[in-house]
C-alpha cells in the first residue's frame, strides 16, 4: 500500500514539475491559449493572428519574470 502511495506521489510530482515547474505563468498561458483557440476557431484570420500573439505575450512576460528572479 505504502509503495503504491509513494508511486502515485512520484507520478503526481512528475506531472506537477512538468506542467507547472518554475514558470506557472506558462501553464496559465497555455490554458488561456487553448480556451482562445476553441472560442475563436470560426473567426479565420483574426484567430490566425491573435493566437500566436497570446503565446508571444506570455513568453515575453515569463522571460522578464525569469530575469527578475535570476
Amino acid at each position, binding site marked *: 500500500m505504502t509503495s503504491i502511495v509513494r508511486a502515485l506521489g512520484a507520478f503526481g510530482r512528475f506531472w506537477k514539475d512538468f506542467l507547472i515547474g518554475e514558470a506557472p505563468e506558462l*501553464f496559465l498561458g497555455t490554458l488561456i491559449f*487553448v480556451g482562445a483557440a476553441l472560442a475563436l*476557431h470560426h473567426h479565420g484570420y483574426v484567430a*490566425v493572428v491573435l493566437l*500566436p500573439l497570446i*503565446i508571444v505575450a506570455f513568453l515575453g512576460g515569463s522571460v522578464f519574470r525569469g*530575469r527578475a528572479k535570476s
Partner: protein
Amino acid sequence: MTTSTVVLALAVFGASAVEMVEALTIVAAAGVSRGWRSALEGTVAAALVLGALVVAVGVPLARLVPINVLRVVIGALLLVLGLDWLRKAVLRASGHMALHDEDAIYARTVADLSGAAATTGGAAAGSWRHGRRDATSFTVAFKGVFLEGMEVVLIVITLGASSGHLALAAVAAVAAAVVVSIIGYFVARQLSEVPENSMKLAVGIMLTSFGVFWVGEGAGLHWPGSDLMILVLVGVFAMTAAVLSFAMRRIGPSRQTVAVHGGPSS
C-alpha cells in the same frame, strides 16, 4: 514527405540529441568511475523501458482517442514543454541563467561515485574493476538515461501520435541517441562543447510551433497554407526569441540581482 513531417523529424531528433547529451554525461561518469559493464547494462535497460513506454502509451493513444481531442491535448503539452525550453534558452543566452555545464556535472558525478566506491571498501569496492556487476553504476546509468529520456518519450508520443507518424518519431529519436553515442565515444570529454543551449532554443521553437498549430487544428481552425503555416510559426517564434534575447542583454541584470551581488544599488 510534407513540410510538417520534416519539421517533426528535426524536432524529435534535436530534442532527443539534447537529452541524450545530458544522459551520456551521467553514463560516461558512471562508466569511467565504476566500470563500463554495469553502466552500459543500466543504459540498455532504461532504453528498453522507454521504448516499451512509447509502444504501450503511444500506439493506443493514436488508435483510440479522437484525432481532434488528441491534437488539442497533445498540442497543449507540446506548448508547455516548448515554452519552458524557449524561456530557459533565452535566459541562458542572455546571461540571466547559468548555462548547463556538462563538464561540471561529469566531474561532480565522478567524484560522488568515487566517494561511494571508497566508502564501500575492500573487495566489494574493487569487484566492478574486474568486470563484475556494480549496482551503483547500473542504478546511476539507468536513472540518468530514464529521467532524461522521459521528455524524449513525451515528445515522441505527442508529436508522433498527433501526426500519425509515431514510427518516424521513434526512429528520429533513436537515430539521435545513436549519433550522440558515437560522438560521445570519440569525444566523451568534450561534451561541454556541444552547443546545447542553441539546440534547446531551436527545439523549443519547433515544439512551440507544433503546439500552436495542433491546438488550432484540433479546435477546428483552418490555418492558411495548411502545413506550411508551421514554417511561418517557426519564423514568428524564432524572431520572438531573438528579440527577447537581444532585449534581455540590453537591459542587463535586474535590480534585485545587482543588490544581491553587492553591485551599485542606485
